[in-house]
């Protein structure tokens, strides 16, 4: 009797799931029909003609159907519980890591005996499993630490704190030796790309993320035109260095001050606006700056940009191949990598200064006022906080760091053009802050590493080209994924990946507050 009822229930649930999946497939059919099934292309006579892509379209609709069916049929609740238990068991995590390691090696060996395309795919999975091994090992260590030193006890807390400090010191040490290590491992030819694309590029975005984090994460003012300050910094350096021959070290603070000035200039008019209005006005401001850069050709050379921007020197000693150059002065053989390494350390120091200043500011009255402003503006005013100066200082300081990063960018590229300062660039920086967790320094840094490093890595991977065809350009999909990630993060974890809040001021002991308990912006 019971079994029969069970059977009926499961059959009807299967039916319901099938119906839901069919509905999803139908919606996907309608949504994708115009833009996926057809493609408007210009033919040789430059007339628009239609291409059809029925197999691709069918595949997408099938994926929608299968995905919804799985979603409906999987026992999600029990899976969630099991996954949570799995993530807390160090032993199980370690065995998963071992399994992944074995799989990775099997695939690596198999790749050797396979044909070209298959080998590339096998190799891709090798990377994937190697990465999974790494992730599982870290997870296992984390789970072990959590189990060994429970947060409830005094020693546990102390140990956790020590481990945290140790990790931070370790990370800092790694960042310091990173270029030297690469140089030693890969030589000057092999390492320059890794220092430049992965080191400097990521650190610029970490710095921009931390700068914007002051405005968005701490003061709660969504700034969609942050790239304007980056542009102000870059053009200030480029123009002043070319016209007046001033050095990088004089112009760096000057660019920061100019950007901060523009930050105040933007801040003044938008003081009265809140939330979404403010976001749109900052966006308009960013666009105006970019349009002026494009159209004021006499000053900025328009679309063509400014080239031949002087490169930074080692405190007055240029990185050139000559008797006065850096290499000759220090008795080294000339090598282009010294400049790259120097730039790496400059941006590292700049980023660390940003982080340090932000951390200190949070403890000052102004920083606490920012955070209070983020939580409730009306309450702030009732308590006598001057919201004008609070907002303006957030804009100015955030913009200043953007200006620093901009002048560094100009010095590193030796070339600036309006194309580097589009709304999409602002969107990338906002995405970094939002995905990392608004207000969390570590989260923002991690998001920058994942997003920018991931983009660069996608460029490097030949595997994707082997799978999707020669002319496959993975960077095309970068912004597509960012957009999707922003939506998903807002729905799934609206506080970002690192969503706990550690209060800046506390009574007796510091307690991390889950982001879920903080309701902000309801003012």
């Amino acid at each position, binding site marked *: 009797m019971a079994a029969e009822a069970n059977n009926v229930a499961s059959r009807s649930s299967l039916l319901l799931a099938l119906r839901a999946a069919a509905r999803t497939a139908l919606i996907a059919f309608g949504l994708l029909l115009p833009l*996926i099934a057809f493609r*408007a292309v*210009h033919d040789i006579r430059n007339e628009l*003609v239609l291409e059809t892509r029925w197999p691709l379209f069918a595949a997408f609709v099938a994926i929608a159907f299968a995905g919804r069916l799985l979603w409906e049929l999987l026992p999600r609740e029990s899976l969630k519980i099991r996954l949570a238990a799995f993530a807390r068991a160090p032993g199980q995590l370690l065995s998963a890591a071992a399994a992944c390691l074995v799989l990775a090696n099997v695939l690596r060996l198999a790749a050797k005996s396979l044909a070209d395309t298959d080998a590339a795919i096998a190799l891709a999975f090798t990377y994937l499993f190697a990465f999974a091994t790494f992730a599982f090992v870290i997870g296992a260590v984390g789970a072990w630490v959590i189990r060994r030193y429970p947060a409830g006890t005094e020693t546990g807390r102390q140990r956790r704190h020590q481990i945290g400090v140790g990790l931070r010191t370790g990370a800092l040490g790694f960042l310091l030796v990173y270029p030297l290590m690469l140089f030693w491992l890969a030589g000057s030819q092999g390492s320059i790309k890794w220092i430049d694309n992965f080191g400097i590029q990521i650190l610029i975005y970490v710095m921009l993320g931390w700068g914007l984090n002051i405005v968005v994460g701490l003061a709660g003012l969504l700034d969609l035109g942050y790239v304007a300050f980056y542009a102000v910094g870059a053009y200030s350096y480029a123009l002043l260095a070319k016209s007046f021959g001033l050095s990088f070290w004089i112009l760096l603070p000057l660019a920061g001050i100019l950007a901060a000035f523009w930050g105040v200039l933007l801040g003044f008019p938008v003081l009265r606006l809140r939330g*979404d209005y403010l976001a749109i006005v900052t966006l308009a401001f960013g666009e*105006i700056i970019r349009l002026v850069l494009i159209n004021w050709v006499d000053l900025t050379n328009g679309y063509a940009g400014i080239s031949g921007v002087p490169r930074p020197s080692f405190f007055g000693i240029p990185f050139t191949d000559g008797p006065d150059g850096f290499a000759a002065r220090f008795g080294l053989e000339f090598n282009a990598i010294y400049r790259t390494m120097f730039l790496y350390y400059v941006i590292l120091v700049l980023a660390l200064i940003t982080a340090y200043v932000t951390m200190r500011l949070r403890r000052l009255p102004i920083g606490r006022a920012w955070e209070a402003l983020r939580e409730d503006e009306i309450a702030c005013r009732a308590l006598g906080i001057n919201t004008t100066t609070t907002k303006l200082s957030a804009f100015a300081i955030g913009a200043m760091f953007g200006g620093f990063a901009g002048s560094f960018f100009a010095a590193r590229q030796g070339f600036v053009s309006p194309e580097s300062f589009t709304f999409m660039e602002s969107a990338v920086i906002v995405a970094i802050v939002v995905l990392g967790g608004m207000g969390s320094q570590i989260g923002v840094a991690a998001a920058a590493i994942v997003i920018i490093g991931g983009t660069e890595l996608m460029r490097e991977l030949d595997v994707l080209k082997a799978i999707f065809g020669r002319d496959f350009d993975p960077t*095309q999909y970068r912004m597509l994924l960012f957009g999707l990630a922003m939506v998903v993060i807002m729905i799934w974890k609206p506080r970002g990946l690192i969503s706990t809040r550690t209060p800046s001021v506390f009574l007796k002991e510091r307690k991390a507050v889950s982001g879920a308990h903080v309701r902000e912006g309801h003012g």
Partner: protein
Amino acid sequence: MEVFVQQLINGVTLGSIYGLIAIGYTMVFGILGMVNFAHGDVFMVSAFIALIAFLILTSWIGAGLIALALVVVLIVAMAMTALLNWAIERVAYRPLRGSFRLAPLISAIGMSIFLMNFVQVAQGPRNKSIPPLFSEVIVLFTVDGYDVTVSYKQIAIWLTTGVLLLAFWYLVSKTALGRAQRACEQDQKMAALVGINVDRTISITFVIAAALAAVAGTMYLVHYGVVSFADGFTPGVKAFTAAVLGGIGSLPGAVIGGLAIGLIETLWSAYFSSDYKDVAAFSILIVVMIFLPQGLLGRPEVEKV
């Protein structure tokens, strides 16, 4: 004088397109209190849908019966775009009701980026141009050899906008659906208590907004004859400016704002510099936000604790 009249004609055409997009912003803002940042890109997608539908139809029925083909294109674009916006609301905005204030906006920004890049990947980054349609003109009058003209497509755009606005005005002010919408604008909880299906009303709002955006998208395609994946951003911001200028939440305000922005843009291009026409539009946005945040016809926003 003749240049002025000509620019007036062009400006009203452009303004009609902005006005139709602006209604979408203003309706969604009215009912949800959020800036639907992706609306400009929904408009762009609708122009692409119209382009594809147009190409399919012309390859079937040939170059004759263009007018009939365009009517079909308009209806297809409206339906498909409505489905798209319905799905966007369902997936990206509905789960965020009751989340913190910036969450729906960030989600909308994500959606906007997604749509723009989806079209870029799916349809390629190049501008898509179609041969000019209805470019025959009527000469209104001639002064010193300068013809003041109005083209058939401009007349078609005005007529379509006018008819749609009337229909839309009837829908919002005279039908049960319109009453439900206005009730949800005032107080969603109370509306739910008196038996209004709030979720459905919001969905329908998004559907209507998308349908109007699709009309604008089709007209944009017919008028300019060219569309690219990046075409959602600037018209989107300008239409938002129009909505704010007219007073966000106010439907006649959106139309008036749209016409004003269209006129300002064309007159600015004609008399000052076309390079800075976008700067002019963006500056208006900033100036209006600062000095007239409630817009021409809007209600001032009251801060509540």
